[in-house]
């Protein structure tokens, strides 16, 4: 199976990060802080939000959005900054390519590792949501693969775009994309807040699709629509995967 050898590289990362697991794990705290602040503090100022024809408490509304953000953040950090460091400074892939692994294995395993890291952030978040009683339906079990899908689309796009980066300064553009995605993709408020045109643009962002999938599952109103939205994320991920493999091969002159 193509990319299966990449498991070796994932194993390498797991061994490497074992020494600094605390740094990695502490990244899970940020979305929880947001949940406490926005969900509970600002939630008390907002009360309820109209969703799917009825009113839900704001903290229940915002929690699945922040779950999607935790999946996005976990995957994004690893697939951009760390991949760039390994590519340009550690020369990790140069040595990897001297083994039976190929450029496509590298792309697949980097994306796989970033998805694992996304899960490392979204699983504790989901557990805390359950503990706080913010989960309304057993469909929420499917939120875990949903979060993994958000991580996959993010990571694949992240690795693909990172191969085009020329210097650390270019990473300001990562912030330029990820901060507005985080703030404006329907995470904190329904699309009805926006003028119609902006709403249509926001609907095309991958994070918005992820937020809708997770919100519908957690609040217990899944529909067949979700399959289309999931398919969109899969396509984004597969395109990223293909581009990343080709670009890494080109950069490393395979």
């Amino acid at each position, binding site marked *: 199976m193509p990319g299966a050898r990449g498991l070796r590289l994932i194993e390498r990362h797991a061994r490497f990060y074992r020494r*600094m697991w605390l*740094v990695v794990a*502490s*990244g899970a*705290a*940020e979305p929880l*802080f*947001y949940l*406490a*602040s*926005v969900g509970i*503090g*600002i939630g*008390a*100022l*907002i*009360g309820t*939000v109209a969703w799917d024809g009825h009113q839900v408490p*704001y903290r229940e509304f915002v929690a699945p959005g922040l779950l999607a953000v935790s999946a996005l953040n976990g995957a994004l950090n690893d697939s951009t900054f760390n991949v760039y460091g390994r590519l340009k400074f550690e020369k990790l892939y140069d040595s990897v390519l001297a083994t039976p692994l190929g450029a496509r294995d590298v792309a697949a395993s980097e994306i796989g590792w970033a998805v694992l890291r996304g899960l490392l952030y979204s699983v504790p978040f989901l557990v805390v949501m359950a503990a706080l009683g913010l989960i309304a339906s057993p469909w929420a079990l499917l939120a875990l693969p949903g979060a993994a899908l958000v991580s996959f689309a993010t990571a694949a796009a992240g690795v693909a775009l990172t191969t085009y980066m020329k210097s650390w*300064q*270019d990473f*300001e*553009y990562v*912030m*330029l994309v990820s*901060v*507005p995605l985080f*703030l*404006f993709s329907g995470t*904190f*408020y329904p699309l009805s*807040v*926006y003028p119609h045109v902006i709403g249509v643009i926001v609907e095309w962002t991958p994070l918005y699709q992820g937020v809708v999938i997770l919100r519908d599952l957690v609040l217990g109103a899944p529909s067949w629509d979700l399959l289309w939205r999931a398919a969109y994320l899969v396509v984004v991920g597969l395109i990223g995967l293909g581009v990343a493999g080709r670009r890494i091969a080109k950069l490393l002159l395979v």
Partner: protein
Amino acid sequence: MTPAQNPRGDRNRPARTALAPLPGRWDLSVRAFRCWLVMYRRTWRSSIWSSVFGPLFYLGAMGYGLGSLVDRHGTAPLGGVPYPVFVAPAVLAVQAMNSGLSNAMFPVFGGIHWNKIYIAARATMLRPADIYRGHLLFITMRITMNSACFVVVMAAFGLIRSWWAVLLLPASVLLGVAFAAPSAAWAVTLRVQTPMSYVFRFGSVPLMLFSGTFFPVSQLPGWLRPIAYATPLWHGAALCRSLSLGTVTAGSAAIHIGYLAAMAAVGLWLGNRSYYRKLYV
């Protein structure tokens, strides 16, 4: 040489008048500052996104997006002002804190471990305190620039309610320096970079979220309120908000300013010591 030339009358000691005097301490600090300025002139474009657009995104999403939901529910807990007016001065305070922290942590650490600009400066006549003050001058300039941009945007969107707001700029710069001075003092002593990530994750993010910025401290559970009132960001945000809304009183302003000025002064004292220990040759 005749003994008469020597003012102390010591025959064996040569006169020192031949040496040019050392430049004054501010001269040397300004030299260190100008080095940062030269670098900034080459790289300012990439920093504009995080420093100018970042706070604007937060103002748009929190102030207007979330604010439309808050205002629908009633603004009594906010003191009766619309949510964007309530949150804008706090976003100003948060970005001043973040400008101070982010300019005083990784660049300071990098000055010793990455681009080694401090090591290079140490080889010149600059003393550790000059390196520290010069860098702080540059950080102060960056905080001032970012805050000024944001205050102009606040005014343009009609989020300012009082003429006291002309003092928003010095207030937010004081807040930023109060964070920057001790942070640089600490960052220069580090051997590895990970503790700085912890400061952002467990320091600045919770401060930003719970210090009466996006919602009044009265919404917090009772046992958390004294902690929130003790944080420097709460003092900075409360000061900025009182200036922007025109609710400022002499007593509260004196407490806020005193707190932040004391923090900056302690930071400066610590910085002089820690830079000396790390960089004195």
